[in-house]
């Protein structure tokens, strides 16, 4: 079922000529991330190159400590590589200052984390609205979009609930609504189902699967085989390197 990428490249030249060119949404070029220095040096990532294309639904798998989260942080402009180049939407972000990188992040990337990371003193709507702050939107407009986004993840009845009043699955769906409300080109999820029971995990995975569209890319890190298998493309990592990058045949 799964092919090595080289096989993908074997499509006939005729067919390629008809396809329009698409720019990768995200690109890592020989990126390394080293923690510490001297003897305590840890290569969390070694010379990794990766392209995320529009419409991609990628799962990143690998043993603990293999550098999955490190790579996701770099993809999401939350971190700076020790060496190599990162390009987001055609723009090289390595070398940008923090404020500019933050701007790129806010505009193009949505995040979902294993621990949900909702702001405890805000209700569901408030949490989703947080993603829309400082964008010149009126309070009413922010609210309208937040509620719309909450409705999309099936939380129409939980607008005014605070995180402590919601189940894990509901909280993760609020987090998902928050990630989506800015309509990001790229959605990055680190173990989004890691803290959920199987029923809730399935629910969240279904939402994630439905999110994937021809313009958007979804990248998720996971340990669970069934979660990884939901993706079209599977990137396997070991010791800070990508050991395989396979795409499912359609």
């Amino acid at each position, binding site marked *: 079922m799964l092919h090595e990428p080289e096989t993908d490249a074997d499509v006939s030249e005729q067919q390629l000529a008809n396809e329009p060119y698409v720019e990768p949404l995200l690109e890592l070029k020989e990126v390394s991330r080293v923690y510490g220095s001297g003897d305590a040096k840890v290569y969390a990532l070694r010379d990794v190159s990766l392209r995320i294309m529009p419409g991609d639904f990628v799962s990143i798998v690998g043993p603990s400590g293999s550098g*999955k*989260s490190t790579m*996701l*942080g770099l993809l*999401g402009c*939350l*971190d700076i590589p020790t060496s190599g180049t990162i390009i987001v939407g055609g723009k090289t972000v390595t070398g940008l200052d*923090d*404020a500019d990188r*933050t*701007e790129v*992040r*806010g*505009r193009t990337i949505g*995040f979902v*984390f*294993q*621990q949900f*990371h*909702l*702001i*405890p*003193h*805000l209700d569901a709507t*408030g949490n989703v609205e*947080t*993603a829309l*702050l*400082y964008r*010149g*939107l*009126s*309070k009413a407009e922010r609210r309208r979009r937040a509620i719309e986004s909450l409705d999309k993840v099936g939380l129409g009845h939980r607008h005014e609930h605070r995180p402590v009043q919601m189940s894990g699955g509901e909280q993760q769906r609020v987090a998902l609504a*928050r990630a989506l409300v*800015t309509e990001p080109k790229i959605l990055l999820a*680190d*173990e989004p189902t*890691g803290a959920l029971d199987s029923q809730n995990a399935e629910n969240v995975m279904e939402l994630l699967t439905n999110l994937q569209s021809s313009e958007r890319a979804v990248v998720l*890190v996971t340990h669970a085989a069934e979660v990884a298998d939901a993706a079209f493309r599977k990137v396997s990592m070991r010791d800070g390197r990508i050991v395989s990058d396979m795409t499912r045949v359609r």
Partner: protein
Amino acid sequence: MKTFKDLLMVSLTGLFARKVRTLLLLLGPMIGVAAIIAAVGLTDSAKGDLKAKVNKLGTNLIEVSASSAFGGQDPTLPEDVLDRARSVVTVKSVAKVHELANIVVTPYNEARDKYEAVPIPVLASDVLLPSVLEVKLISGRWLNEFDEQATSRSAVIGIGLARQFNYLPGETRTIELGNIRYGVVGVLSEVELEPAFDNAVFITFSAAKADFVDADKILANKIYVRSQVGAEKDTSEALKIAINLGGPDEVATDIKSEALQLAAQSDQQIKLIVVSMGILASIVGGVGIANVMSISVIQRSAEIGIRRALGHTRSIIASQFLLESLFIGLLGGICGVLLGIVSIFLGATIAGWVFVLAPWLPPAGILLAMVISVIAGLYPSVRAAKLEPLETLRLG
């Protein structure tokens, strides 16, 4: 502008979400500011009645009198004393008087024996005296130019004398000045800066010369001057030189409200001590704010991380926390000012003082609380901004 509005909303929501913590933080600056306001207010209120009096009477009345250097009789000021006084640039207005000696004053001739024992001063005075003293007349009018030119026997009496002689307001009466009958044309109201005037009789220079002085000229022996406010000391020195120049007699000056002003001064030492304690309390409150905010930054590191991940810049995060401490200062300051004012009011009421609150005090108190809170919030805010989102979120 929209960004600022968003920031305001986020900071206020953050403060409201932790009401108890916010209230505890308010206490520091609040107590400090309240102590300062109460200290200044109460020490001021203790002298409030005197202060009010100084304000009413003005601080700028100067008396210039002739005093003979060698014990000579009847020292006088130079003839052109008014012009000399007016040559001092800080002089606003001036009036001259001459105190006449040994005139027996009685309400009517038959009462001579009864009143002889009590000396009542009789002053030759110019038409400007009430305006320089800034006192009004209870009834009637002051001496005018016509009286002066016509050498009319018109007199104005002080309020004390009017009571003593049982004058009714508006009544047509006469007064005997050394057997010469004068018509009373007016009663002067209380002259608080020159209490002797309350029992004095005022007549024109021309009448005084005609009826009581043998010499061919009558010279003033005293003038009253209003100077520019704040220039009293300099004016009084300048007047001495300007008037004394070339004359035989010495000149003495007296700033009339100086003693009163001194008495009205608040106890500076007590004020200083309590204000220092208030400032100290505010600073301790500030340290408390710095402490709690620092802990709060650690507690809220995940919140900060997620905000950064959602695209909030470092400066936005710093501003958010700085605004929170600014509001704590503002609220604490306002509460402190209110508490301080209540303290002054209660204290002054219990002690029977006049409530005095310097108008600069409330804004200064609020400003102090805000400045201290912002300084206290500076370090935690910078720390919050410096947090690395990846570390606070611990992906996966």
